[in-house]
């Protein structure tokens, strides 16, 4: 698979006083990928996004966007845009002017007829054609979220960073917006880095998911990989597995090296059962392990 690195983190560390919010993260996200950061509250998801977007500078390590180190570039010089969890719309501007904000700045200096055209297109994209003249305060939460999305998307960033953008919505609207986001992402083919603490959401939308814990990655992989073969107990737990057993490997058959099929292991649980399991980890006889059914 040919993949150009869109976002790359290399041994990034971020501390707030004594708290290590992000601890030695390394990560490569390909161009056009829908990449989710999944993890419990306080694990460093927002901090990771802010590091990519330039709202925080790493204490050590490098952040790359499209192959360039951007550590010392302020947010306004980065080709990434953030959709904030609380939307952060400009309350003094109409929906139209909110969306046009980036286009009208000196660095872009878009001619006004062009701005009008692009804003109309962006409104159409998020199905808010009739809301252009309103103020943010006159919109519902879901509508505000879509304005925030349009405001970022209109600038065609190389990377769009979304921080729990559906967190405040009810289940139905959430489902609809998930679909819509996925559609938009495929339509405009921008790299999405999507923060959520809802595993179902991450599973249903992403190309790849990174499970985070205490500022570090537990596991990175496709939704299937993470769901079907979580590599740690934490991941399994977080994926919603409800029957996790601890045990010891009593026999391992690694299978033929290079063979597509995974080997099998025999595990004796603490309660005395013996189970056979297909296994793609390199477990050797005697190793402690946990598994779920």
């Amino acid at each position: 698979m040919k993949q150009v690195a869109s976002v790359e983190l290399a041994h990034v560390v971020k501390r707030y006083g004594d708290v290590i919010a992000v601890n030695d993260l390394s990560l490569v996200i390909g161009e056009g990928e829908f990449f989710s950061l999944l993890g419990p509250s306080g694990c460093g998801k927002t901090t990771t996004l802010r590091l990519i977007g330039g709202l925080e500078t790493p204490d050590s390590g490098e952040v790359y966007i499209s192959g360039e180190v951007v550590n010392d570039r302020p947010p306004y010089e980065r080709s990434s845009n953030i959709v904030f969890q609380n939307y952060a719309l400009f309350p003094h501007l109409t929906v139209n002017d909110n969306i046009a904000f980036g286009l009208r700045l000196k660095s872009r200096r878009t001619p006004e007829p062009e701005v009008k055209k692009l804003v109309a297109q962006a409104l159409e994209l998020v199905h808010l054609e009739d809301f252009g003249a309103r103020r943010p305060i006159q919109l519902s939460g879901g509508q505000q979220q879509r304005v925030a999305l349009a405001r970022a998307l209109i600038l065609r960033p190389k990377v769009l960073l979304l921080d729990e953008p559906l967190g405040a919505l009810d289940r139905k609207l959430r489902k609809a917006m998930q679909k819509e986001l996925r559609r938009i992402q495929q339509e405009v083919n921008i790299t999405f880095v999507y923060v959520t603490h809802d595993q179902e959401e991450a599973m249903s939308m992403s190309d790849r998911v990174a499970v985070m814990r205490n500022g570090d990655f537990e596991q990175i992989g496709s939704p299937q990989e993470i769901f079907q073969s979580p590599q740690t107990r934490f991941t399994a737990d977080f994926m919603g597995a409800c029957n996790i057993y601890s045990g010891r490997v009593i026999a391992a058959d690694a299978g033929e090296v290079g063979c597509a099929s995974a080997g099998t292991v025999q595990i004796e649980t603490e309660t005395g059962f013996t189970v056979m399991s297909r296994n793609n980890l390199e477990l050797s006889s005697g190793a402690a392990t946990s598994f779920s059914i």
Partner: protein
Amino acid sequence: MKVMDVYRLRKSLLRFFRNHPAFGIGAALSPSAFWLLIFTLIPMGIVIYYSFLTRGPWGTVINEFTLDSYRLILDPLFLKIFARSVKLAVLTVVICLLAGYMIAYWIAFYGGKRKNFLLFLVILPFWTSYLVRIYAWIALLSDHGLVNNFLIKIQLIDEPLPLLHNEFAVLVGLVYTYLPFMILPLYASLERLDRSVLEAASDLGATARERFFQVTLPLTKGGMLSGSVLVFAPALGEYLIPELLGGAKAMMIGKFIALKFIGLRHWPLGSTYSLMLLLMTLILLYLYMRVGGGKEAFQEQR
């Protein structure tokens, strides 16, 4: 009037309005409306009443209706002094806005843990008498005051500069006195400003400058407007500062009105000029709010 009496008065007023729904304002007679009535509307009514009375001999007031006082409102001296007062008050507002914005911005964004201490410093002058503080400016600005002595010492000037008893001295006194009234509402609106909105502006490509003029400034318009009103209204009617620092050449409207009451002993005329001052202040503030989009700015600050 004892507290109980006030309480009973309020109760009976409430009962009156309940029993007479024809007086539609009955429903509006909330506690706040009651205090407004006691401390604002009734004294104002007395001033209006006096302005229509006749002046008796030796400064007495005769309870007899006349429009005599109103025939004198276009007195050229009144208009001249009023114009000077407006000029000084507007200059005060402009200088306080510029200086106050910088101070409030600095405290709100860079104050860190010292914010409360810095705010305390802003209101510290209120702890001593305003009179004493104005006198202190005389010691600073007079011909042999600190400022002139210093400038002569470093040989920047040979002769003392005329710093006192002119409009400059009044302006210094006004800015000094009313600056905290500008800083506090500005600080409040800057403090309330949602930081993530500023981050969003940077993220969308705004430089620090663009962000300030397109986001920070419009979103603190409410603070700027209320600070301006808090400074403009008392600065316009200021009595003591021009009296002490201005002398005869820099008389302001407050002193002019006081002279009608105390010097001329003409209470109806003094009342009339007071009302004129109030009216013009209201008109000027109304225009200011209209131009500044005051109503909207206040709504957005929710």
